[in-house]
């Protein structure tokens, strides 16, 4: 019987070749995107699964009265908590202190470096590929590597016991290699060193008191620990010891799992939208299959009746239909797996890899995804088979055998609601894509308050092996550049637009006693001139007038406003609480967008620093005459490549750096656009199938109408008008939703576009154009048919 079912299913699919192909294309593309979205969500959620007992691991989150929050706590807090709290089983610091240079057999490596206590492996019981976790960080001069770093340095061998030279002076013994970690993991681990190694560093030592918060801590709690009790203990310890307690609003014990979403808030949006997109696409393809199946059922009532006459049961008929759809769905799943591995996954890695890490798919390890997609396949098959067939196997044999269907209620309410919903989703995605695209375009092309074109940026913070040699070559380069007719201006600075440190300090005006929290950066005398940022008060830095030791400062308008100054004459500002005479304000620049347009322009101060101190600057910026960029780039690259350094010289253009700030949003745009294209494409495939069927069913009606004098266009309208109306209704549903959600989203940008009617107009036009085209093509074919043939067909 089963063999018979399969045989008939395959013949049926073959008989309706066009329809099967439409379904196969729609399903394969749809399921491959569902697979991609679900896999990335899965990879994200399971990234920390390998950490044993992670539900017992917590960290502390300090919330300030000004609304900011951070994970860092005063250094001595950890020891106190471990010693005094009954809730805590073990604890470790984990912080950065610059990425250490490691040398092995003459090759240098610099990887993400973290410093932790020996108890690190008690808190995070990460499996070690080589070495013993209990002792790995006990010795002062030991180093633990991740598997990836170990392979980069040592290849495939077990490196435990080998020695790496750290920071030119330290003999570090490799004591462990951590098993591979998911790139989505909360850990950005590379090299792990014992905290004790930093104790020789006086700057570090000076910070390890109750006055500074610089080190995040992680605690392993006992089973069923009392979180409130722990929070109270933290609170008491801080109240007793911490100097700046008045600034703190609250300290919360946070689960380790919360750390990730806290670190990159946009992740939540991406994950939620991915799940929504997967759900939408799945919904659309299922609706297509459901609607098309219902339509094909009309042409099968007779076969169903004949089978029943010959003794078939209803169950057998439904099974037959399930098998037919199952073949279609599971063939699509196979094809979609191929699409996923060969196209979607590499693309996903291109888009989100730089931010979240590269992911790969492994059949054995990622079996839940495989099982999930098979379950989706089975459920979808049942859904799209059982519902339509149930309705049709109920038709009495006596009616079915004659093909009399007039008594079947043409219940189009469900079908039409589904079509409306499908197109609402498609149009919603199109609208969102249009609005996103406009916003990105706006941010990329907005007047930023500086001239970004024709500026070359050299990253000159390269860890030079011999600073004196490097400095002399750099001086020579500066001379060459300054005398070049193609160079308009040259400057060095700590920051460039798009790359300012989160370097906030509170400054005060000693006269008026006003405090302003602002960012600080260092720049030479021509940095602001090179960017062509206009001065609105005072003057630019001047190397003949200004001395670096005096710390002359140029603030931006936002800072001027924050201080409440009318004029800057004689104004100085100093670090809050500092007794020195402070920084003289020599000028005010017009506000310029030194970060992306999601953020408002915050108060900013530039402090003068001598151009020629190579090691004091991170960037070299050169404004070049248009058309001569390449020549100057060559000079820069060849000079820096000739200087012995640990890092490789990177050359870029300011305009690219500025646009690059929107890579993540552009990634989101790309995902939305693909979803939009899929949604409209698959929905249109569905309509194409439906109109094909109604055209087939109405062959006689069309013939009669033509005999009675109807024109081709009348018939095209007859066949397609109902569907066009449905798409019209869908636009009306989609627009307010798009308008509302996108307004909410745009509110998170300091600078945003206003949503205009044409954006919806364009979305509606795209949707209607595509559906009209799809419907029109099929309808015209039917309308052009010779009525003699149409009438004979009955």
């Amino acid at each position, binding site marked *: *019987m089963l063999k*018979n079912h399969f*045989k*008939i299913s395959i*013949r*049926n699919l073959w*008989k309706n070749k066009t329809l099967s192909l439409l379904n196969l294309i729609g399903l394969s593309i749809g399921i491959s995107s569902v697979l991609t979205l679900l896999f990335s969500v899965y990879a994200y959620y399971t990234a920390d699964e390998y950490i044993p007992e992670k539900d017992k691991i917590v960290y502390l989150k300090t919330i300030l009265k000004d609304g900011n929050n951070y994970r860092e706590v005063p250094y001595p807090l950890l020891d106190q908590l471990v010693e005094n709290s009954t809730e805590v089983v073990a604890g470790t610091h984990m912080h950065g202190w610059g990425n250490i240079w490691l040398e092995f057999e003459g090759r240098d490596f610099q990887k993400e470096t973290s410093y932790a206590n020996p108890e690190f492996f008690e808190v995070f019981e990460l499996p070690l590929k080589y070495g013993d976790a209990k002792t790995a960080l006990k010795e002062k001069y030991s180093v633990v590597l991740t598997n990836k770093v170990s392979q980069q340095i040592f290849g495939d061998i077990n490196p435990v016991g080998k020695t790496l030279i750290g920071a030119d002076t330290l003999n570090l013994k490799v004591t462990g290699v951590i098993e591979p970690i998911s790139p989505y993991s909360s850990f950005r681990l590379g090299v792990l060193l014992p905290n004790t190694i930093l104790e020789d560093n006086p700057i570090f030592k000076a910070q390890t008191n109750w006055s500074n918060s610089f080190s995040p801590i992680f605690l392993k709690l006992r089973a069923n620990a009392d979180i409130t009790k722990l929070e109270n203990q933290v609170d008491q310890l801080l109240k007793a010891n911490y100097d700046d307690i008045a600034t703190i609003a609250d300290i919360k014990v946070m689960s380790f799992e919360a750390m990730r979403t806290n670190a990159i808030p946009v992740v939540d949006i991406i994950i939620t939208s991915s799940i929504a997109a997967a759900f939408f696409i799945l919904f659309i393809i299922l609706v297509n299959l459901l609607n098309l199946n219902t339509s094909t059922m009309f042409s099968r009532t*007779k*076969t169903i009746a*004949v*089978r*029943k*006459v*010959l*003794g*078939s*049961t209803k169950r*057998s008929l439904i099974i037959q239909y399930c098998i037919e759809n199952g073949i279609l769905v599971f063939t699509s799943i196979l094809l979609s797996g191929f699409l996923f591995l060969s196209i979607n996954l590499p693309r996903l890695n291109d888009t989100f890899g730089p931010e979240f890490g590269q992911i790969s798919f492994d059949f054995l390890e990622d079996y839940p995804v495989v099982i999930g997609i098979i379950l989706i396949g089975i459920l979808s098959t049942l859904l799209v088979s059982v519902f339509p067939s149930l309705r049709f196997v109920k038709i*009495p*044999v*006596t009616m079915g*055998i004659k093909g009399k269907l007039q008594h079947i209620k043409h219940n189009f309410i469900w079908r039409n609601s589904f079509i409306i919903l499908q197109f609402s989703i498609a149009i919603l995605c199109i609208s969102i894509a249009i609005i996103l695209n406009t916003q990105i375009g706006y941010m990329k092309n907005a007047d930023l308050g500086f001239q970004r074109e024709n500026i070359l940026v050299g990253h000159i913070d390269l860890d030079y092996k011999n600073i004196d040699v490097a400095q002399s070559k750099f001086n020579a380069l500066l001379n060459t550049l300054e005398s070049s007719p193609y160079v308009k201006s040259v400057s060095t600075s700590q920051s460039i637009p798009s790359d300012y440190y989160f370097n906030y300090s509170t400054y005060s005006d000693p006269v008026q006693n006003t405090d302003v929290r602002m960012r600080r950066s260092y720049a030479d005398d021509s940095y602001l001139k090179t960017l062509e940022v206009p001065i609105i008060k005072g003057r630019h830095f001047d190397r003949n007038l200004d001395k670096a030791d005096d710390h002359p400062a140029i603030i931006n308008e936002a800072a001027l406003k924050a201080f409440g100054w009318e004029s800057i004459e004689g104004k100085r500002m100093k670090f809050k609480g500092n007794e020195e005479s402070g920084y003289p304000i020599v000028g005010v620049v017009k506000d310029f967008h030194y970060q992306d347009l999601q953020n408002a322009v915050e108060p900013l101060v530039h402090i003068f620093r001598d151009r020629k101190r190579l090691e004091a600057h991170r960037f070299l910026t050169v404004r070049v005459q248009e058309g001569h960029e390449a020549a100057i780039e060559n000079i820069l690259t060849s000079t820096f490549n000739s200087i012995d350094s640990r890092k490789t010289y990177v050359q870029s253009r300011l305009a690219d750096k500025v646009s690059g700030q929107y890579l993540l949003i552009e990634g989101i745009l790309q995902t939305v656009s693909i979803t939009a294209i899929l949604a409209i494409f698959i929905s249109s495939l569905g309509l194409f199938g439906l109109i094909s069927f109604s055209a087939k069913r109405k062959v006689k009606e069309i013939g009669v109408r033509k005999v009675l004098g109807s024109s081709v266009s009348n018939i095209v309208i007859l066949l397609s008008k109902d569907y066009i109306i449905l798409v019209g209704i869908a636009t009306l549903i989609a627009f307010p939703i798009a308008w509302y959600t996108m307004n909410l989203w745009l509110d998170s940008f300091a600078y945003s576009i206003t949503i205009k009617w044409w954006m919806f107009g364009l979305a509606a036009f795209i949707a209607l154009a595509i559906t009209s085209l799809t419907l029109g093509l099929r309808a015209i074919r039917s309308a052009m048919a010779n009525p003699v043939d149409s009438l004979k067909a009955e």
Partner: protein
Amino acid sequence: MIKITNLEKYYETEEVQTIALNKLSFEVKEGEFAAIMGPSGCGKSTLLNILGLLDDPDGGSYLFNGIEVAGYNESKRAQLRKHNIGFVFQSFNLIDELTVFENVELPLIYTGVKPAERKERVHEVLEKMQIMHRRKHFPQQLSGGQQQRVAVARAVVNKPKLILADEPTGNLDSTNGNEVMDLLTELNEAGTTIIMVTHSEHDAKFSHRIIRMLDGQKVTENILV
């Protein structure tokens, strides 16, 4: 074999009630070949549907082999039907997706016959219908006469006690029509009871008895043999 007494069937639409069978009574004995005649709309097809257990009467009694089957539910009817009754339709009603062999095999699958036996029985019946050479063809590749021979083969493959034929020659030319009538006669001579609905006086002459109907009632009954 078949005894109906005061059989009634109504069709209702929103406005009118049509009486399709009006207290109809007659009997068909085992081994008989009966023809039912009458103008369009007289209730012939309705009668055949009820006799074939495809439909349920609204009143009266229907004894099939002495068992009252009026009031049987769909699954009981199906059970009885697939073991005892074969159908031949005017429009053949072969399944387009299946070959000649598979069409004929289908009733055997539904009655749970083993594959080896199925093959044997299908071959046997195809030989008898002289259509063996066409067993791998699909219905649309056959002439009307050939298609009806396949339909008859399918109707008899399960060795039913009763064959119901609804205008079996209606879509055929006279040569092919006569061939089909000869086939039915042969089957009847071999012991199968046949009830045939027809418009054709010519075909009716092949039967033993003609029941004439009008407006859902029996008007005359002519015994031919």
